[in-house]
């Protein structure tokens, strides 16, 4: 029943449960003026009065996350699913685990909440959030890259790829291999030739 509840129903309920004015002997009349009603309306929390929709996302391990639509459509993939009408109940994301999905949602929430990055303070705040966001272990970082790619969230993909790029800069090939466990599949002769080709990079 709950899933059929839309904003129209909610508004009707709120009217029904509008609290009555206290009737005291001193109050001269019982009628409500327009301004009094408007005042009451403004006291209600906005989630009841506004029509913000929430989307339910389901991770690969079955956990569900309810997020505002504005946050969910940071992902172009989810946005297209909603537009195509596939998002009635919940959106299954078989490629994303709950651990990663919760992180992605955290990222999207922060980026939606920060209105515009024009103001210096907001921009600094967002930058430090991003810097802390990517302080994770390597496998989580790569999982975030894959999730950002699958969900098509450009800013997250750029952020995570830039982080990996920064981890590569300044290291020798041996150090890079060690950091990322990259297997060297060159034969010694091939490696020698590649080294010669790119001699300028090693001096």
């Amino acid at each position: 029943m709950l899933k059929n509840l839309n904003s129209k129903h909610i508004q009707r309920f709120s009217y029904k449960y509008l609290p009555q004015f206290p009737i005291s002997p001193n109050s001269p009349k019982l009628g409500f003026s327009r301004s009094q009603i408007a005042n009451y309306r403004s006291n209600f929390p906005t989630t009841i009065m506004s029509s913000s929709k929430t989307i339910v996302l389901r991770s690969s391990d079955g956990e569900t996350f309810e997020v505002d639509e504005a946050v969910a459509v940071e992902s172009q993939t989810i946005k297209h699913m909603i537009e195509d009408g596939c998002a009635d109940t919940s959106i299954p994301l078989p490629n994303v685990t709950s651990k990663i999905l919760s992180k992605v949602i955290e990222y999207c929430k922060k980026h939606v909440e920060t209105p515009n990055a024009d103001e210096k303070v907001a921009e600094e705040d967002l930058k430090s959030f991003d810097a802390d966001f990517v302080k994770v272990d390597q496998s989580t970082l790569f999982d975030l890259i894959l999730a950002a790619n699958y969900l098509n969230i450009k800013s997250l993909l750029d952020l995570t790829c830039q982080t990996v790029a920064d981890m590569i800069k300044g290291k020798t090939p041996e150090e890079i291999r060690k950091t990322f466990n990259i297997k060297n599949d060159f034969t010694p002769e091939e490696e020698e030739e590649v080294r010669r080709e790119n001699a300028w990079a090693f001096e």
Partner: protein
Amino acid sequence: MSTCKFQIHPEPLDLFDLIPDSILLLILNNIADVKTLGRCSLLSKRFHSLVPQVQNVVVRVDCVISDDDSTSSSSSASDKSRGGGPFSSLLRLLVGGIVKPIQAIGQLLGPKRSTILAPSPSSALSVHNNNTSGDDEQHSGGVTHHSPTQVLKNFDEIKFLKIELPSGELGIEDDVLLKWRADFGSTLDKCVILGASSVIHPQIVASGNVMNDGGDDNGSIPESFYTNGGLKLRVVWTISSLIAASARHYLLQPIISEHKTLDSLVLTDVERQGVLCMNKEQLEELRVKPLSASSASKRTLVPALNMKLWYAPYLELPNGSVLKGATLVAIRPSEQAGQKDVSDGSWVSSAFEEPYGTAARMLVKRRTYCLEMNSF
């Protein structure tokens, strides 16, 4: 009976195996630095095959050596150190006429301590000043140098190329401001130069000891400007900026002809004194119509020019700094004047980044002076 237990030590997972080639290419594009990319191509066969596909490349040149045309000893070559030494002497010569060809920009060097195979056949041992050991003035025998052309040979699909020289070519005193931005096709398309004889920074201005003597002038140049050497200095700035720009343009030729996928090319320096830009149409123009070289010097011929000059003896910027003797020069070839809509001044004000963009916008509102210059 005891059973043998084998312990299996799984190989640590190569995380890059999880991500597809397209994302790995995105990571490589974010790296951009050509030296790091060279190292990456050694990592594994997969990296080796992907590095040539990188589209966004930045080349950081470490030092510039002089072209050893004449018999030069190590001491004279060491004079041509980075920091614009040769250009300050060039500036002195310019007043009398341009005699000495550009030598300092003769060849570009590649990364540190690396070797360049100098195109000029005369010098096998090109002497250079390594910027890490500045006092090394002897021949470092066997030191080779790599030119950007050579370094970029491995890349097939470069779209955005940025080359960064270690310093600007124009040797100017600390207080003087000189910035130029030039756009080239097969010849000069447009150029904007911003100069100031002195720059006073906000901290000093705040102490309130600077007089504002040009506040209500009508934008015209004071008579003293012509007599106290102000005009001569501006002409020297203009000519030396154009020479630097055309020399850079000349050097880019082999790179441009080899990399046909280029969309944008920027040749700048660390101090951002001069920026040479070429966009897609301009690059195409250069491939189709080869440039004409100026005689006796390794630079492109600069065509006959129409110049517009604006001057302010005292210009206060919103960020608090003050430019004294601020000059803005907007240059276009004379041929273009009839063809394009010259009244659109947006290319002048958008040439520089802040805070100088604002300075340009403020100067453009003042009185315009027109000059002409012959080709050189």
